[in-house]
């Protein structure tokens, strides 16, 4: 078997991996650094290629962020969405490093949108990548190449080989030639994302339901490194069923549907399941805030499918979507097209319509349109569904990422299950995001965690290396 020797090996090719490799190389230019990316070049960048922004605190307006967003406010947002299930010390640690993350990105060629314009912009809390995550990933790959980092595409790490507390080599599959290669190095950084693309593993965790899940991101996050770490007694944290899951258009391809597959009208209409019954308050809160809970809601319905139904009154209140809505002129026709029971659907909608209390509809505030007298009330934006044509989007759970990962310290070094640290093993990004989040998600935090811990992993790996024999 062929053997390759490096000083630093980074496993993965997304944001965290690239930040780690670049930081390591900049810490010491003479080191031989390699990136192993499982995907072909055209698909490089993992889930990071699908991202839009990263969240950053700031005390004053910057060229890419408006107003101010303090550490406390940022932390409060994290606290709220995770219902307190966050590690405050680690969360604050990441948050306080986010301003440097933005600077690091800019310095290495990532471009951000100016803070003023746009329909989507949260502007204040999140800095938006100009051209999206793929452009970020491209910029980092260009920088990495310029710095002399060796990039191996279609090289998938299969296993890690340890001696005592140190990782000695990675067993890697060269997919183009279908042969195994040994990669030896002084330090290893694992930044290979979660295991959300591994359908079997999802099924182990979720049962048969998982067969109907759609993976929003890359197909290359197969979790092989997480398995290897598990096997080699790294400390695993988190629950395999926890992760970020949203409701997306059921017609989305199995992988890489990305952002465009979102359905934006849930809070404006009603959502029914296979049995033509409503199952949750669609008007509980604004859609971006509720976005993340609907994935799990749909996952727990029969056949993991649901239907979001609106009528023509609210057409202009939501973002256009990738797939055209299914449009019909009557509820019966809609039921036929969706293969729902006509009578039941009619009954559900009639009951709903009769319970709507007239109010002043305003989709930009939590308005006073609600229902009264239903088993499951709709608490805002409740309008009668009575003006054809009717619009329908079928929904399925879309997995964004998983939280189960490895425990790390604040230098990104990986813990063993006995509480001690591996000598030369680091982790960054999604694979250790569970140190900070255990459920729920605030938009843009994934890239923040990956950038902050990626940089730490790179720098500390080089520092630790000096002390090793």
């Amino acid at each position: 078997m062929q053997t390759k020797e490096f000083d630093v090996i980074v496993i993965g090719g997304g944001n965290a991996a690239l930040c780690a490799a670049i930081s390591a190389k900049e810490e010491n230019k003479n080191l031989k650094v390699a990136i192993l990316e499982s995907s072909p070049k055209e698909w490089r960048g993992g889930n990071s290629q699908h991202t839009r922004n990263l969240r950053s605190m700031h005390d004053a307006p910057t060229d890419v962020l408006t107003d101010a967003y303090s550490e406390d406010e940022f932390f409060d947002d994290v606290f709220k969405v995770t219902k307190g299930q966050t590690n405050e010390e680690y969360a604050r640690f990441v948050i306080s490093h986010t301003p440097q993350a933005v600077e690091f990105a800019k310095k290495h060629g990532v471009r951000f949108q100016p803070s003023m314009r746009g329909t989507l912009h949260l502007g204040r809390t999140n800095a938006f990548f100009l051209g999206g995550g793929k452009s970020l990933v491209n910029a980092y790959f260009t920088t990495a190449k310029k710095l002399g980092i060796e990039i191996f595409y279609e090289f998938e790490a299969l296993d890690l080989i340890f001696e005592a507390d140190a990782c000695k080599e990675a067993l890697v599959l060269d997919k183009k030639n279908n042969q195994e290669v040994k990669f030896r190095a002084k330090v290893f950084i694992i930044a290979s994302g979660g295991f959300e693309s591994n359908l079997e593993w999802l099924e182990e965790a979720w049962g048969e339901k998982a067969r109907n899940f759609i993976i929003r991101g890359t197909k290359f996050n197969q979790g092989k490194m997480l398995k290897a770490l598990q096997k080699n007694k790294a400390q695993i944290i988190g629950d395999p069923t926890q992760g970020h899951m949203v409701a997306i258009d059921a017609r989305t391809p199995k992988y890489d549907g990305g952002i465009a597959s979102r359905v934006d009208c849930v809070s404006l209409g009603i959502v029914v399941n296979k049995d033509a019954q409503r199952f949750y308050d669609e008007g509980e809160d604004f859609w971006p805030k509720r976005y993340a809970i609907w994935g799990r809601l749909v996952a727990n319905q029969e056949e993991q499918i649901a239907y979001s139904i609106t009528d023509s009154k609210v057409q202009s209140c939501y973002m256009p979507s990738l797939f055209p809505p299914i449009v019909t002129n009557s509820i019966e026709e809609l039921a036929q097209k969706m293969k729902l029971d006509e009578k039941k659907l009619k009954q559900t909608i009639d009951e709903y319509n009769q319970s709507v209390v007239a109010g002043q509809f305003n989709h930009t505030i939590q308005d006073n349109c609600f229902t009264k007298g239903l088993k499951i009330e709709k608490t805002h934006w409740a309008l009668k569904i009575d003006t054809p044509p009717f619009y329908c989007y079928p929904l399925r759970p879309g997995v964004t990422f998983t939280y189960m990962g490895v425990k790390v310290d604040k230098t990104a070094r990986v813990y063993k299950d006995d509480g001690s640290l591996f000598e030369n093993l680091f982790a960054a990004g999604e694979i250790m995001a569970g140190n900070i989040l255990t459920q729920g998600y605030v938009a843009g935090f994934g890239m923040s965690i990956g950038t902050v811990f990626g940089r730490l992993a790179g720098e500390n790996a080089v520092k630790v290396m000096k002390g090793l024999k």
Partner: protein
Amino acid sequence: MKITRIYEDAMKSCVICNSCRYCEGLCAVFPAMEKKRVFNLQDMDYLANLCHNCSECFYDCQYAPPHEFNVSIPAQFAALRQQSYKKYAFPNFLSFIFEKNAFISALLLVVLFFAGFYLAFAGKNSQSGDFFDIMPYTYMTSLFSIVGILVLIALIVGIVKYAKAIELKNVSFSAFIQTLKDALSLKYLGGHKNEGCTYPNETRSNVRKIFHHLTAYGFIFCFIATSLGAFYHHFLHIYAPYDLTQFPKLFGFIGGIFLCIGTLGLLILKLKADKKLIDKESVGMDYVFILMLFIVSFTGLLLMFFRESEYLAALLWLHLSCILTFFILLPYSKFVHMFYRFTALLKYNTEEEQH
């Protein structure tokens, strides 16, 4: 039926972009798209001509091929642009002749004109380098005036048809000035903050913009030179040949050099360009246009250098044949891109202002 296919593909991409919006800050196309929920053919003709083919959004696109969504704005819009040139051209049937084979038609025209001149003026030459010894003044001016006026009419009708189709209206003076600036500076061919765009490949650079500037300004200089020549002749009664210190010659000389360098540069870039950014169908028309510009300017320079030689007559016929051919091609070639683009930018700036 191919036309609808091209439009369908591009529309599909626009729908995806519109729900993705990651490229929002790259150029004018994306904010313009966001104003729509559904796209009709006219919208597509507008958006396509607003696109500068800088290719940034291609490399940034998470849905670019090999992704099955197959979003490839630069190539898809290039195809639409060519369709739009054809669609609004006047008289329409002529554009189909040139579309069939622009290269052969152009070559044929040059040869025909040259043969015509040869038959009419064979044996004439000039020691002093005076063109009118070879081709009489009235002949030359009336020929070019007639062709020129016909071409101008064809161009104007085409542009008006296009402007109507994309619903350009309520233009203000300030929007017009803004558009003039954007067009003259090629704002959207410089990438974000003028850092250069990803053409001819992924590495960012401003070379295309520089070569285009040389081409466009070279062309404008030559146009000024010709107008000045006419002005000198008719009003100042100063007759050709001029020497390098006189404006007609100065503009013509500099313009010619700019054009030669610029078109050669664009040609080389085009040959080197990432094939994924280029629409195979429209690329032929691009080449013919670049080549015609090059040949016109190159034969012009030749004529200047060999003015006092025995080749003068032949060179004059050649240059004039090329110019005539170029004139006739104008309304049906990529030449119209500047007007369509200008009109599209004007609509964009007008709408932004009212926004």
